[in-house]
């Protein structure tokens, strides 16, 4: 076991770490924390571990991390032998771009993440404002990914994915909870739609509740009768 993750299955932020660990093939110890209904992340026991009072928490020895951006960075530096998920030290511009979009991923938690918590658990928010800010964030990413596509780049900072893509992915893919019409926000961004397909196609991809998997990736292992659908 490489590290310990205090985890909640429905959290988009916890999912970032689970997803990256799966992509990197890293084993870790998972401890479930009852975010709802018990609000266990605010319990005295949990606050002793991480005073931030949020999930996820990643611990290794003495180190305690409460920010997913830091966790993804640490995981990339520690386990990513390909060196692709965090740009190398000779490329400060590439590093800066990854940092910029890691920062943006925090905006997604604050907007789409809040809208989703409100839809799920009726947490009190100014819904109209949060929805408006969510749309602004989605549009910003859509515009960026569109511009990337003009240069044949499929990911946020280039032709390969980085931890910035993983940090942004969960709440964008969960954006069906924004707006009154389920899915309308989620289905209105062609560049984001393509990017979601790219992320779901990454080796080691795992889903979370609310994000469907692409069952088609499995068709080579499925029952042969399924594959041989006659052509219409």
């Amino acid at each position, binding site marked *: 076991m490489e590290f310990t993750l205090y985890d909640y299955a429905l959290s988009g932020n916890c999912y970032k770490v689970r997803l990256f660990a799966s992509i990197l093939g890293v084993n870790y110890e998972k401890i479930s924390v009852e975010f709802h209904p018990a609000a266990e992340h605010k319990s005295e026991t949990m606050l002793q571990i991480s005073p931030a009072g949020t999930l996820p928490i990643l611990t290794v020895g003495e180190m305690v991390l409460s920010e997913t951006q830091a966790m993804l960075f640490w995981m990339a530096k520690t386990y990513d032998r390909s060196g692709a998920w965090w740009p190398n030290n000779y490329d400060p511009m590439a590093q800066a771009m990854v940092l910029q979009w890691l920062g943006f991923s925090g905006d997604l938690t604050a907007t789409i993440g809040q809208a989703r918590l409100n839809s799920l658990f009726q947490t009190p928010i100014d819904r109209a404002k949060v929805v408006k800010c969510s749309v602004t964030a989605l549009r910003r990413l859509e515009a960026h990914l569109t511009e990337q596509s003009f240069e044949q780049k499929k990911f946020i900072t280039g032709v390969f994915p980085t931890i910035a893509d993983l940090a942004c992915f969960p709440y964008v893919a969960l954006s069906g909870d924004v707006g009154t019409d389920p899915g309308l926000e989620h289905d209105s961004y062609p560049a984001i739609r393509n990017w979601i397909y790219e992320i779901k196609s990454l080796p080691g991809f795992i889903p979370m*509740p609310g994000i469907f998997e692409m069952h088609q990736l499995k068709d080579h292992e499925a029952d042969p009768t399924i594959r041989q659908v006659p052509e219409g």
Partner: protein
Amino acid sequence: MMNPVERAKQDWYPIGIVSDPRRPKRYATRVLGKDIVLETKEEGSLSVSCGDESWEITEAYDHIWTSPSQNPKPLFSIPEENERDRRFVPCGVVHVRCSPLRAVENFLDIAHFPFVHTDVLGSEPHTEVAPYKVNIDETKDEVIATKVKFFQPQAAKSANEGIVTEYIYRVPAPMTAILYKTCPNRDDVLDIISLFVQPIDEDNCAVWPWMALYDDESSMADMVEFQQLIFLQDRNILENQIPKRLPIDPKMEIPTRADLTSVAYRRWLKKSGALYGALIQPAEQSAE
């Protein structure tokens, strides 16, 4: 026949967990389209009001139930609540933008396991639904499905390997479904999972899952999380079914043999006039 709202008023609906320290003293929610307030007094006593009216209130299965009727139907019974070595697990509440009846029907369905609960409650190529039995128990006025079998990679938090799970389903009230399933640790008892549905209105509901399990090992957080994980996977489906209300006209959707429970449920709703959240007239196909 009684109109759907009047019929719906005769039943009990869940609005809270009995021992929830985080519930505000005055907790506002909605039932059957009405704004209500659940008040918790200093000494712990509870009351429900809807404007000037006060509604009936009762406690059962770790939940607080209310009914707008002065003379509601008796709350259904789950005799296993007396088996004290079970662990009783209220799993919180999740809001879903779908008809309360769609939420119940989905709970009765097993054919979706391989695609919606992939690698947990089902997996390809084990997709076949074997024949099973469905009855209406006339004395209890319940829908009962028995001998429902399905291959499951991880049937419960406590399961370590795939097993063929056997289910019994009960629908004792239009917005309540209870299942009994093979307990991965023991073969002499059945685990219980139920779905208590609070009808916010005809197109929105809040779902309170509750479990009564034989599992000494898993932590409470693990068990709650497992159930929430499963239900959140369903929620994605429920919010994307068109129309939002449950169609009662058999011509509107196409059941197969695997859907016998759903067919019986729809018939039973129709026969007893429990049509709050149902689509009675085939709707104009809406753009929504």
